[in-house]
Protein backbone atom coordinates (compact mmCIF):
# COMPACT_ATOMS: atom_id res chain seq x y z
CA UNK A 1 0.00 0.00 0.00
CA UNK A 2 1.31 3.38 -0.90
CA UNK A 3 1.18 5.37 2.27
CA UNK A 4 -0.70 8.54 1.66
CA UNK A 5 -1.45 11.24 4.12
CA UNK A 6 1.37 13.21 5.54
CA UNK A 7 3.82 10.89 3.98
CA UNK A 8 6.88 12.89 4.50
CA UNK A 9 10.15 11.27 5.25
CA UNK A 10 11.65 11.62 8.62
CA UNK A 11 14.72 13.70 9.16
CA UNK A 12 16.88 11.20 10.93
CA UNK A 13 18.03 7.89 9.73
CA UNK A 14 18.14 5.53 12.57
CA UNK A 15 21.54 3.99 12.27
CA UNK A 16 22.08 1.86 15.32
CA UNK A 17 25.45 2.42 16.85
CA UNK A 18 27.37 -0.83 17.05
CA UNK A 19 27.59 -0.67 20.79
CA UNK A 20 23.93 -0.08 21.57
CA UNK A 21 22.32 -2.81 23.48
CA UNK A 22 18.61 -2.62 23.88
CA UNK A 23 16.38 -5.25 25.32
CA UNK A 24 13.48 -6.66 23.35
CA UNK A 25 10.09 -5.33 24.19
CA UNK A 26 7.32 -7.74 25.19
CA UNK A 27 5.77 -7.18 21.80
CA UNK A 28 8.61 -9.03 20.23
CA UNK A 29 7.08 -12.43 20.53
CA UNK A 30 4.12 -11.57 18.36
CA UNK A 31 5.67 -8.88 16.26
CA UNK A 32 3.14 -8.90 13.46
CA UNK A 33 0.26 -8.31 15.81
CA UNK A 34 1.83 -6.01 18.25
CA UNK A 35 2.45 -2.46 17.17
CA UNK A 36 5.96 -3.01 16.13
CA UNK A 37 8.01 0.08 15.61
CA UNK A 38 11.44 0.39 14.27
CA UNK A 39 12.53 3.31 16.35
CA UNK A 40 14.47 2.81 19.51
CA UNK A 41 13.00 -0.28 21.01
CA UNK A 42 13.18 -2.50 18.01
CA UNK A 43 16.82 -3.38 17.85
CA UNK A 44 17.38 -6.76 19.17
CA UNK A 45 20.89 -7.75 19.74
CA UNK A 46 21.59 -11.38 20.18
CA UNK A 47 25.16 -11.09 21.18
CA UNK A 48 27.39 -8.59 22.83
CA UNK A 49 29.89 -6.86 20.67
CA UNK A 50 32.57 -9.43 21.36
CA UNK A 51 30.70 -12.61 21.98
CA UNK A 52 29.97 -14.71 18.90
CA UNK A 53 26.71 -16.64 18.57
CA UNK A 54 26.89 -20.03 20.29
CA UNK A 55 26.63 -22.04 17.14
CA UNK A 56 29.65 -20.29 15.75
CA UNK A 57 31.74 -20.60 18.81
CA UNK A 58 33.23 -23.95 17.89
CA UNK A 59 33.99 -23.06 14.33
CA UNK A 60 37.59 -23.17 13.33
CA UNK A 61 38.58 -19.65 12.63
CA UNK A 62 41.15 -19.77 9.91
CA UNK A 63 40.56 -16.48 8.19
CA UNK A 64 42.52 -13.44 9.34
CA UNK A 65 39.39 -11.80 10.71
CA UNK A 66 36.20 -13.03 12.30
CA UNK A 67 35.31 -15.92 10.10
CA UNK A 68 31.62 -15.12 9.96
CA UNK A 69 31.88 -14.07 6.43
CA UNK A 70 28.58 -13.75 4.69
CA UNK A 71 30.21 -12.97 1.36
CA UNK A 72 31.86 -16.36 1.45
CA UNK A 73 28.45 -17.88 1.90
CA UNK A 74 26.52 -15.99 -0.74
CA UNK A 75 27.66 -16.31 -4.29
CA UNK A 76 25.14 -13.76 -5.48
CA UNK A 77 24.28 -10.63 -3.53
CA UNK A 78 21.43 -10.97 -1.07
CA UNK A 79 18.69 -8.32 -1.12
CA UNK A 80 19.66 -5.56 1.21
CA UNK A 81 17.73 -2.76 2.84
CA UNK A 82 17.57 0.24 0.53
CA UNK A 83 18.54 3.40 2.35
CA UNK A 84 17.19 6.55 0.78
CA UNK A 85 18.83 9.22 2.85
CA UNK A 86 19.67 11.43 -0.14
CA UNK A 87 16.14 11.32 -1.53
CA UNK A 88 14.79 12.06 1.92
CA UNK A 89 17.15 15.00 2.30
CA UNK A 90 15.95 16.41 -1.02
CA UNK A 91 12.34 15.76 -0.08
CA UNK A 92 12.76 17.56 3.24
CA UNK A 93 13.83 20.68 1.39
CA UNK A 94 11.56 20.32 -1.64
CA UNK A 95 8.22 19.36 -0.13
CA UNK A 96 7.87 22.11 2.46
CA UNK A 97 8.99 24.80 0.03
CA UNK A 98 6.55 23.64 -2.65
CA UNK A 99 3.78 23.24 -0.09
CA UNK A 100 4.32 26.71 1.32
CA UNK A 101 4.63 28.33 -2.12
CA UNK A 102 1.45 26.66 -3.36
CA UNK A 103 -0.29 27.53 -0.10
CA UNK A 104 0.66 31.20 -0.44
CA UNK A 105 -0.37 31.27 -4.10
CA UNK A 106 -3.56 29.36 -3.40
CA UNK A 107 -4.61 31.43 -0.41
CA UNK A 108 -3.96 34.71 -2.21
CA UNK A 109 -5.47 33.74 -5.55
CA UNK A 110 -8.52 31.91 -4.31
CA UNK A 111 -9.06 34.40 -1.53
CA UNK A 112 -9.13 37.11 -4.17
CA UNK A 113 -11.60 35.17 -6.27
CA UNK A 114 -13.93 34.70 -3.32
CA UNK A 115 -13.48 38.31 -2.17
CA UNK A 116 -14.30 39.78 -5.56
CA UNK A 117 -17.32 37.58 -5.79
CA UNK A 118 -18.60 38.57 -2.37
CA UNK A 119 -17.85 42.24 -3.02
CA UNK A 120 -19.63 42.23 -6.34
CA UNK A 121 -22.72 40.89 -4.53
CA UNK A 122 -23.90 39.68 -7.84
CA UNK A 123 -26.22 36.75 -7.85
CA UNK A 124 -24.50 33.78 -9.41
CA UNK A 125 -25.73 33.92 -12.94
CA UNK A 126 -24.24 31.10 -14.90
CA UNK A 127 -23.48 27.59 -13.77
CA UNK A 128 -19.87 28.27 -14.75
CA UNK A 129 -19.51 31.11 -12.29
CA UNK A 130 -21.15 29.02 -9.55
CA UNK A 131 -18.67 26.21 -10.18
CA UNK A 132 -15.73 28.59 -10.40
CA UNK A 133 -16.70 29.84 -6.98
CA UNK A 134 -16.80 26.29 -5.64
CA UNK A 135 -13.45 25.54 -7.29
CA UNK A 136 -11.95 28.55 -5.53
CA UNK A 137 -13.42 27.34 -2.26
CA UNK A 138 -12.02 23.83 -2.74
CA UNK A 139 -8.57 25.17 -3.65
CA UNK A 140 -8.66 27.52 -0.68
CA UNK A 141 -9.38 24.61 1.66
CA UNK A 142 -6.58 22.62 0.02
CA UNK A 143 -4.21 25.55 0.46
CA UNK A 144 -5.19 25.73 4.13
CA UNK A 145 -4.04 22.15 4.73
CA UNK A 146 -0.66 22.63 3.05
CA UNK A 147 1.03 24.59 5.86
CA UNK A 148 0.19 21.65 8.14
CA UNK A 149 1.85 19.29 5.66
CA UNK A 150 4.91 21.52 5.49
CA UNK A 151 5.14 21.73 9.27
CA UNK A 152 4.70 17.98 9.53
CA UNK A 153 7.53 17.45 7.07
CA UNK A 154 9.81 19.85 8.86
CA UNK A 155 9.37 18.85 12.47
CA UNK A 156 7.11 15.84 12.59
CA UNK A 157 3.42 15.60 13.29
CA UNK A 158 2.67 16.92 16.73
CA UNK A 159 -1.04 17.61 16.52
CA UNK A 160 -2.41 14.19 17.36
CA UNK A 161 -4.37 11.56 15.52
CA UNK A 162 -7.70 13.38 15.38
CA UNK A 163 -6.19 16.45 13.73
CA UNK A 164 -4.25 14.18 11.39
CA UNK A 165 -7.50 12.58 10.28
CA UNK A 166 -9.31 15.88 9.92
CA UNK A 167 -6.53 17.52 7.91
CA UNK A 168 -5.96 14.48 5.71
CA UNK A 169 -9.69 14.18 5.11
CA UNK A 170 -9.99 17.85 4.24
CA UNK A 171 -7.02 17.57 1.92
CA UNK A 172 -8.43 14.53 0.16
CA UNK A 173 -11.95 15.98 -0.10
CA UNK A 174 -10.80 19.32 -1.47
CA UNK A 175 -8.41 17.66 -3.91
CA UNK A 176 -11.21 15.51 -5.31
CA UNK A 177 -13.68 18.40 -5.26
CA UNK A 178 -11.24 20.55 -7.24
CA UNK A 179 -10.83 17.91 -9.89
CA UNK A 180 -14.60 17.33 -10.12
CA UNK A 181 -15.35 21.05 -10.34
CA UNK A 182 -12.83 21.37 -13.17
CA UNK A 183 -14.89 18.74 -14.98
CA UNK A 184 -18.10 20.65 -14.16
CA UNK A 185 -16.63 23.84 -15.56
CA UNK A 186 -15.57 22.16 -18.77
CA UNK A 187 -19.08 20.71 -19.12
CA UNK A 188 -20.65 24.11 -18.40
CA UNK A 189 -18.50 25.74 -21.01
CA UNK A 190 -19.37 23.20 -23.60
CA UNK A 191 -23.08 23.44 -22.80
CA UNK A 192 -22.92 27.25 -22.97
CA UNK A 193 -21.42 27.10 -26.43
CA UNK A 194 -23.71 24.36 -27.62
CA UNK A 195 -26.68 26.37 -26.36
CA UNK A 196 -25.60 29.34 -28.39
CA UNK A 197 -25.92 27.27 -31.52
CA UNK A 198 -29.25 27.65 -33.29
CA UNK A 199 -30.42 24.16 -32.40
CA UNK A 200 -28.91 24.12 -28.93
CA UNK A 201 -30.63 23.00 -25.72
CA UNK A 202 -32.80 25.39 -23.73
CA UNK A 203 -31.42 27.10 -20.63
CA UNK A 204 -31.66 24.91 -17.57
CA UNK A 205 -33.26 25.74 -14.26
CA UNK A 206 -31.21 28.30 -12.32
CA UNK A 207 -30.91 26.17 -9.19
CA UNK A 208 -29.35 23.23 -10.90
CA UNK A 209 -25.77 24.45 -10.56
CA UNK A 210 -26.18 24.45 -6.78
CA UNK A 211 -27.56 20.92 -6.80
CA UNK A 212 -24.58 19.81 -8.87
CA UNK A 213 -22.21 21.57 -6.45
CA UNK A 214 -23.81 19.85 -3.48
CA UNK A 215 -23.50 16.47 -5.20
CA UNK A 216 -19.83 17.14 -5.98
CA UNK A 217 -19.06 17.99 -2.35
CA UNK A 218 -20.92 14.93 -1.13
CA UNK A 219 -18.99 12.78 -3.58
CA UNK A 220 -15.71 14.33 -2.49
CA UNK A 221 -16.46 13.61 1.15
CA UNK A 222 -17.24 10.02 0.20
CA UNK A 223 -13.93 9.75 -1.64
CA UNK A 224 -12.15 11.26 1.35
CA UNK A 225 -13.57 8.62 3.69
CA UNK A 226 -10.46 6.40 3.62
CA UNK A 227 -8.25 9.35 4.56
CA UNK A 228 -10.79 10.45 7.15
CA UNK A 229 -10.98 7.02 8.75
CA UNK A 230 -7.57 5.47 8.35
CA UNK A 231 -5.09 8.31 8.68
CA UNK A 232 -2.95 7.97 11.73
CA UNK A 233 0.12 9.52 13.16
CA UNK A 234 2.60 6.73 13.31
CA UNK A 235 6.18 6.78 14.36
CA UNK A 236 8.95 5.97 12.00
CA UNK A 237 12.60 6.71 12.43
CA UNK A 238 12.05 8.60 15.60
CA UNK A 239 9.52 11.03 14.17
CA UNK A 240 5.75 11.06 14.25
CA UNK A 241 4.13 11.40 10.90
CA UNK A 242 0.57 11.64 9.70
CA UNK A 243 -0.24 9.31 6.86
CA UNK A 244 -2.83 6.95 5.49
CA UNK A 245 -2.31 3.29 6.24
CA UNK A 246 -5.05 0.82 5.58
CA UNK A 247 -5.58 -1.49 8.53
CA UNK A 248 -4.51 -4.99 7.73
CA UNK A 249 -7.74 -6.44 9.05
CA UNK A 250 -9.79 -4.61 6.43
CA UNK A 251 -11.64 -7.06 4.22
CA UNK A 252 -10.79 -7.22 0.57
CA UNK A 253 -14.39 -6.38 -0.33
CA UNK A 254 -14.24 -3.08 1.50
CA UNK A 255 -10.89 -2.26 -0.02
CA UNK A 256 -12.08 -3.25 -3.49
CA UNK A 257 -15.28 -1.22 -3.25
CA UNK A 258 -13.38 1.80 -2.01
CA UNK A 259 -10.84 1.41 -4.80
CA UNK A 260 -13.48 1.09 -7.52
CA UNK A 261 -15.30 4.14 -6.19
CA UNK A 262 -12.05 6.10 -6.18
CA UNK A 263 -11.30 5.06 -9.75
CA UNK A 264 -14.68 5.72 -11.26
CA UNK A 265 -15.77 8.81 -9.35
CA UNK A 266 -12.52 10.45 -8.45
CA UNK A 267 -10.44 9.94 -11.53
CA UNK A 268 -11.99 8.45 -14.67
CA UNK A 269 -15.19 10.50 -14.52
CA UNK A 270 -13.68 14.00 -14.23
CA UNK A 271 -10.85 13.17 -16.61
CA UNK A 272 -13.23 11.74 -19.21
CA UNK A 273 -15.64 14.65 -18.93
CA UNK A 274 -12.83 17.17 -19.24
CA UNK A 275 -11.27 15.47 -22.24
CA UNK A 276 -14.58 15.09 -24.05
CA UNK A 277 -15.79 18.62 -23.33
CA UNK A 278 -12.60 20.39 -24.31
CA UNK A 279 -12.30 18.29 -27.46
CA UNK A 280 -15.86 19.22 -28.46
CA UNK A 281 -15.28 22.80 -27.43
CA UNK A 282 -12.11 23.05 -29.45
CA UNK A 283 -13.84 21.66 -32.47
CA UNK A 284 -16.71 24.11 -32.13
CA UNK A 285 -14.36 27.03 -31.69
CA UNK A 286 -12.24 26.03 -34.63
CA UNK A 287 -15.36 25.94 -36.78
CA UNK A 288 -16.47 29.37 -35.57
CA UNK A 289 -15.27 32.67 -37.00
CA UNK A 290 -14.80 36.14 -35.63
CA UNK A 291 -12.34 38.16 -33.55
CA UNK A 292 -13.25 36.69 -30.17
CA UNK A 293 -12.74 33.17 -31.34
CA UNK A 294 -9.00 33.47 -30.98
CA UNK A 295 -9.30 34.67 -27.43
CA UNK A 296 -11.57 31.81 -26.44
CA UNK A 297 -9.29 29.34 -28.16
CA UNK A 298 -6.32 30.80 -26.33
CA UNK A 299 -7.99 30.14 -22.99
CA UNK A 300 -8.77 26.55 -23.94
CA UNK A 301 -5.19 25.98 -25.11
CA UNK A 302 -3.85 27.48 -21.88
CA UNK A 303 -6.05 25.22 -19.78
CA UNK A 304 -5.17 22.08 -21.69
CA UNK A 305 -1.46 22.95 -21.80
CA UNK A 306 -1.39 23.60 -18.07
CA UNK A 307 -3.12 20.31 -17.44
CA UNK A 308 -0.72 18.43 -19.71
CA UNK A 309 2.43 20.06 -18.37
CA UNK A 310 1.54 20.01 -14.69
CA UNK A 311 -0.70 17.02 -14.15
CA UNK A 312 0.31 14.50 -16.78
CA UNK A 313 3.90 13.89 -15.62
CA UNK A 314 2.65 12.95 -12.18
CA UNK A 315 -0.02 10.67 -13.60
CA UNK A 316 2.56 8.97 -15.83
CA UNK A 317 5.00 8.56 -12.95
CA UNK A 318 2.24 7.04 -10.86
CA UNK A 319 1.26 4.74 -13.70
CA UNK A 320 4.83 3.53 -14.00
CA UNK A 321 5.06 3.05 -10.28
CA UNK A 322 1.83 1.09 -10.19
CA UNK A 323 2.89 -1.05 -13.12
CA UNK A 324 6.00 -1.94 -11.12
CA UNK A 325 3.86 -2.76 -8.16
CA UNK A 326 1.43 -4.94 -10.07
CA UNK A 327 4.14 -6.78 -11.93
CA UNK A 328 5.95 -7.21 -8.59
CA UNK A 329 9.01 -6.03 -10.45
CA UNK A 330 12.09 -5.70 -8.37
CA UNK A 331 14.02 -2.56 -8.95
CA UNK A 332 17.51 -1.93 -7.85
CA UNK A 333 17.99 0.53 -5.05
CA UNK A 334 19.30 3.34 -7.34
CA UNK A 335 16.40 2.81 -9.74
CA UNK A 336 13.94 2.89 -6.86
CA UNK A 337 15.45 6.13 -5.65
CA UNK A 338 15.20 7.66 -9.12
CA UNK A 339 11.54 6.69 -9.20
CA UNK A 340 10.93 8.28 -5.81
CA UNK A 341 12.62 11.43 -6.99
CA UNK A 342 10.47 11.52 -10.13
CA UNK A 343 7.31 11.09 -8.06
CA UNK A 344 8.42 13.82 -5.71
CA UNK A 345 9.12 16.39 -8.41
CA UNK A 346 6.08 15.63 -10.57
CA UNK A 347 3.94 15.59 -7.41
CA UNK A 348 5.10 19.10 -6.69
CA UNK A 349 4.05 20.14 -10.19
CA UNK A 350 0.64 18.54 -9.72
CA UNK A 351 0.21 20.48 -6.51
CA UNK A 352 1.23 23.68 -8.28
CA UNK A 353 -1.71 23.19 -10.61
CA UNK A 354 -4.05 23.67 -7.65
CA UNK A 355 -2.36 26.98 -6.87
CA UNK A 356 -2.59 28.07 -10.49
CA UNK A 357 -6.31 27.34 -10.90
CA UNK A 358 -7.38 30.91 -10.06
CA UNK A 359 -4.97 32.27 -12.65
CA UNK A 360 -6.14 29.86 -15.32
CA UNK A 361 -9.83 29.78 -14.64
CA UNK A 362 -10.83 33.02 -12.99
CA UNK A 363 -8.25 35.65 -13.89
CA UNK A 364 -8.52 34.89 -17.56
CA UNK A 365 -12.23 35.63 -17.33
CA UNK A 366 -13.27 39.13 -18.28
CA UNK A 367 -16.05 39.43 -15.76
CA UNK A 368 -13.67 38.55 -12.95
CA UNK A 369 -11.37 41.37 -13.98
CA UNK A 370 -14.26 43.80 -14.04
CA UNK A 371 -15.30 42.69 -10.58
CA UNK A 372 -11.75 43.00 -9.34
CA UNK A 373 -11.53 46.52 -10.67
CA UNK A 374 -14.76 47.28 -8.92
CA UNK A 375 -13.48 45.74 -5.69
CA UNK A 376 -10.32 47.84 -5.84
CA UNK A 377 -12.44 50.93 -6.29
CA UNK A 378 -14.00 49.86 -2.97
CA UNK A 379 -17.25 48.76 -4.43
CA UNK A 380 -18.45 52.15 -5.52
CA UNK A 381 -18.82 52.77 -9.21
CA UNK A 382 -21.55 55.30 -9.84
CA UNK A 383 -20.45 58.07 -7.47
CA UNK A 384 -16.93 57.86 -8.79
CA UNK A 385 -15.40 60.47 -10.99
CA UNK A 386 -15.53 58.21 -13.98
CA UNK A 387 -17.15 59.91 -16.90
CA UNK A 388 -19.24 56.91 -17.80
CA UNK A 389 -20.94 56.98 -14.46
CA UNK A 390 -21.60 53.28 -14.24
CA UNK A 391 -19.68 50.11 -13.93
CA UNK A 392 -17.85 49.20 -17.07
CA UNK A 393 -19.87 46.40 -18.44
CA UNK A 394 -18.50 44.03 -20.88
CA UNK A 395 -19.47 45.53 -24.21
CA UNK A 396 -21.96 43.47 -26.09
CA UNK A 397 -20.55 42.42 -29.35
CA UNK A 398 -22.94 44.33 -31.51
CA UNK A 399 -20.41 44.45 -34.24
CA UNK A 400 -20.42 40.72 -34.54
CA UNK A 401 -22.95 39.50 -36.96
CA UNK A 402 -23.14 35.83 -36.17
CA UNK A 403 -25.17 35.01 -33.06
CA UNK A 404 -22.95 32.01 -32.40
CA UNK A 405 -19.95 34.17 -31.79
CA UNK A 406 -21.75 36.66 -29.61
CA UNK A 407 -22.97 33.96 -27.31
CA UNK A 408 -19.88 31.87 -27.33
CA UNK A 409 -17.94 34.90 -26.22
CA UNK A 410 -20.39 35.71 -23.48
CA UNK A 411 -19.86 32.28 -22.10
CA UNK A 412 -16.25 33.11 -21.42
CA UNK A 413 -16.78 36.10 -19.22
CA UNK A 414 -18.17 34.94 -15.98
Amino acid at each position, binding site marked *: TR*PAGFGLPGPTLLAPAPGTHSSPSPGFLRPRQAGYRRAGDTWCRADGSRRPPPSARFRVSWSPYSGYDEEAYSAEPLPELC*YKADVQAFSRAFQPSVSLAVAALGLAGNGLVLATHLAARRAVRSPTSAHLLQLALADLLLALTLPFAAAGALQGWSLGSATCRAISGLYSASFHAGFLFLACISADRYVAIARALPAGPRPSAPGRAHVVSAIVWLLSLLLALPALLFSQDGQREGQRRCRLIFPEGLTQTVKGASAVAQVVLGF*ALPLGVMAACYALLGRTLLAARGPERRRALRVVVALVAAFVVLQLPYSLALLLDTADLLAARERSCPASKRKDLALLVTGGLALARCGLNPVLYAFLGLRFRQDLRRLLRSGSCSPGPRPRGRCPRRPRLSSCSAPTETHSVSSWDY
Partner: protein
Amino acid sequence: MQTAAALLTLSLLILWTSPALGGANDAEDCCLSVTQRPIPGNIVRAFHYLLIKDGCRVPAVVFTTLRGHQLCAPPDQPWVDRIIRRLQKNTAKNKRHSS
Protein backbone atom coordinates in the same frame (compact mmCIF):
# COMPACT_ATOMS: atom_id res chain seq x y z
CA MET B 1 -12.03 -11.57 -17.54
CA GLN B 2 -10.10 -8.83 -19.29
CA THR B 3 -12.55 -6.24 -18.04
CA ALA B 4 -12.09 -7.50 -14.53
CA ALA B 5 -8.32 -7.32 -14.91
CA ALA B 6 -8.53 -3.80 -16.28
CA LEU B 7 -10.85 -2.78 -13.47
CA LEU B 8 -8.56 -4.32 -10.92
CA THR B 9 -5.59 -2.53 -12.44
CA LEU B 10 -7.41 0.77 -12.33
CA SER B 11 -8.60 0.14 -8.79
CA LEU B 12 -5.12 -0.64 -7.62
CA LEU B 13 -3.84 2.40 -9.48
CA ILE B 14 -6.18 4.66 -7.61
CA LEU B 15 -5.81 2.92 -4.29
CA TRP B 16 -2.12 3.44 -4.38
CA THR B 17 -2.20 6.76 -6.11
CA SER B 18 -4.76 8.61 -4.08
CA PRO B 19 -3.06 11.93 -3.63
CA ALA B 20 -0.53 11.98 -0.88
CA LEU B 21 -0.58 15.03 1.27
CA GLY B 22 2.30 17.20 0.19
CA GLY B 23 1.88 15.94 -3.32
CA ALA B 24 4.44 13.19 -3.23
CA ASN B 25 5.16 9.85 -1.74
CA ASP B 26 7.59 9.35 1.03
CA ALA B 27 10.83 7.67 0.14
CA GLU B 28 11.01 5.28 3.05
CA ASP B 29 13.96 3.06 3.79
CA CYS B 30 12.51 -0.27 2.82
CA CYS B 31 13.33 -3.69 1.49
CA LEU B 32 12.66 -3.87 -2.24
CA SER B 33 12.72 -7.65 -2.20
CA VAL B 34 13.40 -10.48 0.21
CA THR B 35 15.74 -13.41 -0.09
CA GLN B 36 14.25 -16.82 -0.65
CA ARG B 37 17.43 -18.64 0.28
CA PRO B 38 17.90 -19.11 4.00
CA ILE B 39 20.55 -16.95 5.62
CA PRO B 40 22.84 -18.80 8.05
CA GLY B 41 21.87 -17.74 11.53
CA ASN B 42 25.41 -17.39 12.77
CA ILE B 43 26.14 -14.34 10.68
CA VAL B 44 23.19 -12.42 12.11
CA ARG B 45 23.54 -10.25 15.17
CA ALA B 46 20.30 -8.24 15.17
CA PHE B 47 16.95 -7.94 13.51
CA HIS B 48 14.09 -5.56 13.09
CA TYR B 49 10.83 -5.47 11.18
CA LEU B 50 9.86 -3.24 8.29
CA LEU B 51 6.19 -3.94 7.61
CA ILE B 52 3.37 -2.50 5.53
CA LYS B 53 2.41 -0.19 8.34
CA ASP B 54 5.89 1.26 8.33
CA GLY B 55 5.10 2.43 4.82
CA CYS B 56 6.87 -0.40 3.02
CA ARG B 57 5.39 -2.37 0.16
CA VAL B 58 7.39 -5.51 0.83
CA PRO B 59 7.04 -6.61 4.45
CA ALA B 60 10.38 -7.87 5.64
CA VAL B 61 12.53 -8.87 8.54
CA VAL B 62 15.84 -7.05 8.31
CA PHE B 63 18.78 -9.01 9.67
CA THR B 64 21.88 -7.07 10.57
CA THR B 65 24.91 -9.22 9.92
CA LEU B 66 28.13 -9.17 11.86
CA ARG B 67 29.67 -7.11 9.09
CA GLY B 68 26.91 -4.57 9.23
CA HIS B 69 24.97 -5.60 6.15
CA GLN B 70 21.21 -5.28 6.32
CA LEU B 71 19.70 -8.34 4.68
CA CYS B 72 16.02 -8.59 3.85
CA ALA B 73 14.17 -11.79 4.71
CA PRO B 74 10.52 -12.79 4.36
CA PRO B 75 8.67 -12.52 7.70
CA ASP B 76 6.59 -15.67 7.16
CA GLN B 77 9.28 -18.32 6.73
CA PRO B 78 10.11 -20.91 9.36
CA TRP B 79 13.87 -20.37 9.03
CA VAL B 80 13.37 -16.68 9.67
CA ASP B 81 11.34 -17.44 12.79
CA ARG B 82 14.08 -19.80 13.97
CA ILE B 83 16.75 -17.11 13.67
CA ILE B 84 14.54 -14.57 15.42
CA ARG B 85 13.82 -16.97 18.28
CA ARG B 86 17.47 -17.65 18.73
CA LEU B 87 18.36 -13.98 18.68
CA GLN B 88 15.73 -13.31 21.31
CA LYS B 89 16.96 -16.18 23.49
CA ASN B 90 20.52 -14.94 23.25
CA THR B 91 19.46 -11.45 24.15
CA ALA B 92 17.65 -12.70 27.20
CA LYS B 93 20.72 -14.72 28.19
CA ASN B 94 22.97 -11.71 27.66
CA LYS B 95 20.73 -9.61 29.77
CA ARG B 96 20.88 -12.10 32.61
CA HIS B 97 24.65 -12.19 32.33
CA SER B 98 25.04 -8.46 32.34
CA SER B 99 22.66 -7.83 35.21
